[in-house]
Each structure stands twice: as structure tokens, then as C-alpha cells.
């Protein structure tokens, strides 16, 4: 069974159609990349998958592990194992990163009928995961994303990913704002989580990230449609030729 099946997905925001019929399957254990120019609908796709109500699904369906995803509230999707690494992570003043993540993890565990982690177990877990993504431990006690640099925010997203261990991880331009060392660390963190079960949807502008997180499949999204699908070499091709090639199809 596919982890994620998207059929003829149409979505709009404020009455403007952004996604114009997306079809996409992600099998367990696979890494899919979506590339495309600005405004092609990459972020909209990620928000629709996560259940942001400001995006309206006007047609089509999404099945996640056989279930109708569109029936689930955003927090239910998260508890079912969907994680979105945000392009612009928000700040939550006064709420420590640790406290936030503990609330998140325990909400997810409770939903799954697992025991909540006690303070010691939790601390041990986050310290260990912070190390794998080289997140400075001082950031654990700081309020969520407040005063973090752009790079620290993205690293924090991948840190949360490592702690919450989702089934399907959607990374929305996690590479933007990262220098090359940070990019490598983030990629290492993601690669360490790859296994036979977990699926990834990696959204990016640039081929650079895909040198480190090598995808199984690459899709090109232009003007709300997937215009081409191929292997990892497609990304390299795009790097050379740009998206101009697809302008005709997009029009």
C-alpha cells in the first residue's frame, strides 16, 4: 500500500486556484523531491497535506496509509505521523523549545495509546537528537524559534523531525537560508532517518540539497501541475537548463 496517494488535487487560496490537478504517489521508504519555480504551488501542496484550513481543496482526493486524509484535522494528521518542516517556522514567545516539544510528543503518544514519557526519558531523548542535528543545547531552553537565526530555525525543524519520528516527512525549502555546513548537517539528520518505512517529500528550489539528500524520484511542479517526473538526474538537468524549458507547458 502506498504511504501517500494524491489524485487530481485542486486547491485554491482566497478563491485563486493554485494547484490544478496533482497526481503523486509516495511508497514507503522513498524520498520524493519536488522542484519548481517561485509561485508554482510547492508550498501550497505542503500546507494542503498538513491541513492548513486557509487552503481550500476544491477537487480530488488524498489518501494517507489508505485513509482519507482530507477528513482529518491538522493535529490528527500530525498524530497519524505527518510532519511538515516549515519554510518559515513561527516564533512562540515565552514557550521553551523543550516544553513545546514535550507537549507535542506526549500529545502524539497519547493518541497512539502509548505512555507519556517522563521528564528524564524525555530529556535524554532530546539531548541525543539535538546532537544528531548539531543543535546547540542552549537552544533547547530558549523560546520556540524566538531570536533564532534563519539557519537555527531550520535546524530546529529538523531537530523536531528527529524527535517526533513521523511516517511521512514533508520538508518545505528546509535548505533555504542554510550555509553549506548547516546544509550538510541537516541532510545528515534526514538521511539518518531514512529507512524502509518512512517516506519523504522534499520541496526545494535548488538541486544543491538533493546532492546530500539523494531522492528516488524528482517531480517538476510548474503552475500548479506536475509537468515532468524522473530520477535524480532530472534535478541535475534542471540545474543546467532552468525552468524556462517548461514555460510552454505551464501556459
Amino acid at each position: 500500500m502506498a504511504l501517500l496517494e494524491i489524485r487530481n488535487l485542486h486547491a485554491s487560496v482566497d478563491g485563486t486556484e493554485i494547484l490544478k490537478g496533482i497526481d503523486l504517489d509516495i511508497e514507503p521508504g522513498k524520498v520524493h523531491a519536488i522542484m519548481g519555480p517561485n509561485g508554482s504551488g510547492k508550498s501550497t501542496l505542503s500546507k494542503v497535506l498538513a491541513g492548513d484550513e486557509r487552503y481550500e481543496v476544491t477537487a480530488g482526493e488524498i489518501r494517507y496509509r489508505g485513509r482519507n486524509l482530507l477528513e482529518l484535522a491538522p493535529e490528527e494528521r500530525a498524530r497519524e505521523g505527518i510532519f511538515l518542516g516549515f519554510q518559515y517556522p513561527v516564533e512562540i514567545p515565552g514557550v521553551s523549545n523543550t516544553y513545546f516539544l514535550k507537549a507535542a510528543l506526549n500529545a502524539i503518544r497519547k493518541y497512539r495509546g502509548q505512555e507519556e514519557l517522563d521528564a528524564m526519558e524525555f530529556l535524554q531523548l532530546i539531548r541525543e537528537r539535538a546532537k544528531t542535528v548539531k543543535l546547540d543545547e542552549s537552544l533547547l531552553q530558549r523560546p520556540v524559534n524566538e531570536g533564532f537565526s534563519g539557519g537555527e530555525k531550520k535546524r530546529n525543524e529538523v531537530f523536531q523531525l528527529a524527535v517526533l519520528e513521523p511516517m511521512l516527512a514533508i520538508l518545505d525549502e528546509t535548505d533555504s537560508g542554510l550555509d553549506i555546513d548547516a546544509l550538510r548537517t541537516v541532510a545528515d539528520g534526514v538521511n539518518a532517518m531514512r529507512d524502509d518505512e518512512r517516506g519523504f517529500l522534499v520541496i526545494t528550489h535548488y538541486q544543491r540539497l538533493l546532492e546530500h539528500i539523494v531522492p528516488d524520484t524528482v517531480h517538476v511542479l510548474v503552475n500548479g501541475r506536475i509537468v515532468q517526473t524522473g530520477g535524480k538526474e532530472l534535478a541535475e538537468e534542471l540545474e543546467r537548463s532552468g525552468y524556462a524549458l517548461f514555460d510552454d507547458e505551464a501556459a
Partner: protein
Amino acid sequence: MSATSKTLEEVTTRGYEAGFITDIEQESAPPGLNEEIIRFISAKKEEPEWMLEWRLEAYRQWQQMPEPDWAKVNFEPIDFQAISYYAAPKERPESLDEVDPKLLETYEKLGIPMHEREMLAGVAVDAVFDSVSVATTYKDKLAEHGIVFCSMSEAIREHPELVRKYLGTVVPQGDNFFAALNSAVFSDGSFVFIPKGVKCPMELSTYFRMNAGHTGQFERTLIVAEEGASVSYLEGCTAPMRDENQLHAAVVELVALDDAQIKYSTVQNWYPGDENGKGGIYNFVTKRGLCAGDRSKISWTQVETGSSVTWKYPSCVLRGDDSVGEFYSVAVTRHRQQADTGTKMIHMGRNTRSTIVSKGISAGHGQQSYRGLVRITPKAQGARNYSQCDSMLMSSTCGAHTFPYIDVQNPTAQVEHEATTSKISDDQVFYCNQRGIDTEDAVSLIVNGFCKEVFRTLPMEFAVEAQKLLEVTLEDSVG
């Protein structure tokens, strides 16, 4: 409508959890205010002649005073002759065991530590049920340190010299309209005296609870810390649900001598009225601390989610050199609640310092004003103040207003004022949702984060209580 704004709107619809009425016999004075009533109250309390005279003088001053109308609140005029100024449970208990079980049940429902629990928590509780202190715990243990912690009525009988020396020295009888009214008819309250050099070994706590209908509650609290003494005091307040409005006009006076420290924390969730603004407490309170001695420190922390109309400015008069005043406040207004609250920091001594951190949360049709005065008098060389006023708006029908008054009369002063207004954004809530946290928990998480700077100044166990109170206030916010 997005999930967030839906949630925030529904914040206004939560019921009042402490809204139950205890059914015990009350002995009340007939409604109305005149010298006879004041004599009746004084006689009931077996007060000495000087106390009665003090009350009568306050009453005479009050009669000459106009009711203040400068606060940004609107309410029906109060008929002071329709209020009963005295209510007491008929049986006077001698110890906790004799306390009416229904009373204890009331405290139980409120989660107030009374029996064994206060021992574990290290809390001594002077519980004020309407006007008479029903039970005072831990008095003996405190007495070993020379600490006096008792009801004001008892203090007037047992420690008249102390009461006489300090009563009215910080808030004089004619200070303002409501303080004068309180001075004339005050029913009970707490008295705390910490002698020279003594650090009070436990948190002192009083729970006020108004019960009888149509009665005002007029506590009078006086806390004195002598040279080098220190004390942390907490008051918690709840009132049952009633259709009519109840008046609460308390006076709290704090006196800190050289090197003394007083920390006064309030958790207040009096009945705020229903969503149409019917019922609820009028909370018109005068709280003031005098840093009389050098290097003394007075710190006010308040977490207020209740009352229909609030008019309250816990203040510090920094008379001693190097003395310190602090004010930390979280105030929530929802339904039709109105609050005009803030603080006054009066710098008189050299190198005096003050800090003001005010967090206001408005929901529903709540209206909230921060009103603060920072005054640096000519002799306050090197005085410093930092003020921060943050408002969070949770609906499109609520309001937040800031009225900072800054009066600097000495060129060496440093005064800073910062203010922000924010809303809980859909993005923040969605971010929490995406991590598995439902909207109700997300709102509570974000609001608690907003209030954190204030919560961290509360004594540990009360910080937890305040956080819970805020959660309960925002509970059922998701339909």
C-alpha cells in the same frame, strides 16, 4: 472563519467553575450606611474606642468625597445604602475541627489547602469567609519566631499598639473614595507582623471568599516587616455566581523598614459576570506598599481573571534610599469584564529602582486599560524605572488601552517604557496543530508563554495554580 478565531471567540462562553453558593446561616447587618451601622460593626468586633473613632472619622471624610469617575470603566451607579456592610457565619469556630463542614467543602471545591495539605505545602492559611476569619492555622509555629499572623479583628484586640502604630500610615483614611469607605466599615482581613531580622519560614496565604448576597466585602490587610525581616504573602480570591453585582473595596497596606522585603502575590478569580455582563464583582481596591527603610524591597505580583469591573493600582512608595519596587501583573478580561489597572511607583529616595511588567489579555467584549504612574521626585537622585506593558487581543470585539503617566523631576533619572500589542496568530496555532497539539492546548500554551515573565515571579506552587487558572479560564474554548 479560521480555527483560531473560532476558538478565541468561544473563549467567552466558558462557565464559572467556582460559582456555587454555600448554604449556611448568616448574621447580617441591615442594608445601609450610617454611624449606627459603623458602631454596630465595631461593637460586634469588640473593638476599643480609638478604633471606632478612627472608623467614624473615615466615614465623615467619605461623606464629603465624590465618587471617582476618571477610570475607563462603565457600570451602573452603586447605591451605597442598598448594601449590607456586615455578614458573618453565626457560629464562631474555635478551631478547624469546629468549622462548618459545608465551609470546608467550599474550600475543598476551590482546591484550597486547609487540613493536612497546607502542612505538606508549608502554607499557613488565614481563611476569610465573608467578614470573619474562620480559622487561622500555623499561628503557634509562627509565634515561635515572634511572627504575628492573624485576622485584623484579632490584631486590634490582641496587638492594639502595633495596629495603631501602622494602620493608615500608607493608605490614610481619606486617601480616596473607596479607601475611605473601607476605613469606615472594614470587616476583616489579615494582619502580619514580622519582627526585626526574622525571615518568615513559610509562605503566608489568605483565601478570601465572598458568599452572602448583597454584601460588600471590605477587607483591611496590614503587613509590617521590621528591619531585615522578610515575608512572602499570597491572597487568593473567589466569589460565587450571583445575578446582582457585589462590591469589594479592600485596602492593603505594606510597610517595609530598613533591609526588609515583602512579596505580595494575588491570584484572583472572582465571578466576572456572565457573557451579557450580568452580575459579577466590583473590585475597587487600594493596595500600596511603603518602602520606608533603606534597601527595602516590595514586590507585587497579581494574576487576575475575575471581577466584572476592576479598579486597582498596587503601588510602591520608595522612600528609603536604594529601595526597590516591583509590579508584575497578568490580567484577563473576557465576557463584558472591564479592568482599569496598573501601578504607581513613587521614587523619593536616592538610587531607588522600580520594575513594571504588565501583561493584559482581552477576549470576548473585555475592555482593559493599563494605567501606570512613574514619578521621580526632585530628591530621588539616580532613580531608575523600567516598564513593559504587553497586551494580547483574542477577539475583534475586545479592547486594550495603555495610559502611562511619567513624571520626572530629577535630571539624573532613567525611565524606560516599552509597550506591545499582539494577537495569537493563525500561523502560531497551525504550527502547534502540525506538531500534534490541538487548538485549545495551543491557545493555552501561547497565552502561558505570553505570561511567563510574571508567572516566574510567583512562589512555585502558586505559579502552577495560576497557570491552571488561566487554563481553566480558557477551557472549553474549542467547540
